[in-house]
């Protein structure tokens, strides 16, 4: 049976892609962020995942505002990146696992999540940058199942719904008969705002609260509405929805084993967290 080994959450700011291309990892500006990946890379080398299920949001590469799915699951053999219009290098493609994708899709719909299914899906920096951060070498040793969550056009799904989506994805993975080591990834955040007179808004206290609750008490965060999240984390800080979905997929005894938090990278409070999914059932508040 497939087993979920843990999760990684990380910021996906586009300029990270440029910093990687320009080999700026050791620059004073960038190193506090990139150093946070030393642990992640070691953890991945030890844990050897076969698959990464990636919760992310598209920023106008695959989806335009003509059709915005709330939740969309990729079911392609290969996921390509393309010119995103803001000057970051185009990434290499990433292999998919259509059989696992369809298993997850079938399970989600049976579980009453009315998702969109995508046999062709471009993936943007929100997928490719975390991949490049986790595996900086020539090869990306995992196949992916990308799951896009709408964080762009309101109304957005709630934290509660994204946590439930993640839990459903977690149950689907654990019912997959193949022996696979699966990791889950949540990308984006933490607090930031690009638009309006409040541009540059960052909220260290709220970010800390979110990270402190994520491993042990994710349900406690569902008291925040999307409107609260915009107020507390900034207009684009709502990407924390992807983190919640990632967390939901971890059903065992969840422990934070790594955290890096640094302000600022671009306009963003940059954060990287690794959660381990230990043996034994999660104790969940009724």
């Amino acid at each position: 049976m497939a087993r979920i080994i843990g999760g990684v959450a990380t910021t996906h700011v586009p300029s990270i892609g440029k910093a990687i291309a320009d080999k700026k990892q050791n620059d004073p500006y960038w190193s506090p962020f990139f150093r946070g990946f030393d642990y992640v890379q070691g953890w991945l080398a030890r844990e050897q995942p076969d698959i990464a299920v990636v919760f992310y949001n598209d920023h106008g590469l695959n989806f335009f505002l003509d059709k915005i799915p709330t939740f969309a699951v990729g079911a392609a053999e290969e996921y390509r990146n393309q010119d995103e219009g803001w000057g970051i290098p185009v990434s290499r493609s990433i292999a998919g696992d259509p059989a696992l994708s369809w298993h997850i899709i079938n399970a989600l719909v049976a579980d009453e999540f009315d998702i969109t299914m995508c046999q062709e899906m471009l993936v943007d920096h929100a997928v490719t940058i975390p991949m490049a951060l986790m595996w900086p070498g020539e090869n990306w040793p995992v196949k992916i199942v990308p799951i896009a969550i709408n964080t762009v056009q309101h109304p957005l799904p709630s934290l509660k719904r994204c946590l439930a989506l993640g839990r459903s994805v977690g149950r689907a993975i654990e019912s997959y008969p193949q022996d696979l080591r699966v990791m889950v990834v949540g990308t984006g955040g933490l607090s930031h705002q690009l638009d309006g007179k409040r541009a540059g808004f960052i909220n260290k206290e709220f970010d800390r609260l979110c990270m402190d609750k994520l491993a042990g008490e994710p349900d406690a965060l569902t008291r925040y509405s999307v409107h609260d999240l915009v107020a507390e984390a900034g207009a684009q800080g709502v990407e924390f929805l992807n983190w919640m979905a990632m967390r939901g997929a971890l059903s065992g005894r969840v422990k934070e084993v790594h955290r890096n938090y640094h302000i600022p990278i671009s306009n963003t409070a940059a954060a990287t967290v690794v959660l381990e999914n230990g043996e034994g059932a999660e104790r969940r508040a009724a």
Partner: protein
Amino acid sequence: MKQDIPGTTMFDGGQAQKGYALNRMCFSFNSAENRAAFLKDEDGYCSKYGLTPEQREAVKSRQVLRMIEVGGNVYYLAKLAGIFGLNVQDIGAQQTGTTVDEFKAKLAAAGR
């Protein structure tokens, strides 16, 4: 009743509907060929995408706050800003009426 969040425009159905033509034009800037076509003939390119007169004026002004007022979404506007070589610190400074250095200093201060 939800309180408005100061300095923040929710990109909701109303904004998405109002800004459709502008955002659709910005979406086209995923292509280098289209970015070049815009630079070559901005008026012609804007009229091809059916921008309203207010949207046309907002683009001409290069002011992001004005573009948001006419329905622009920041992820799409960033593709337009990129054509002029502006990054998110540049447009952050512009929107908050500070210099880019002041804006960056404000970001750094948020970490202390």
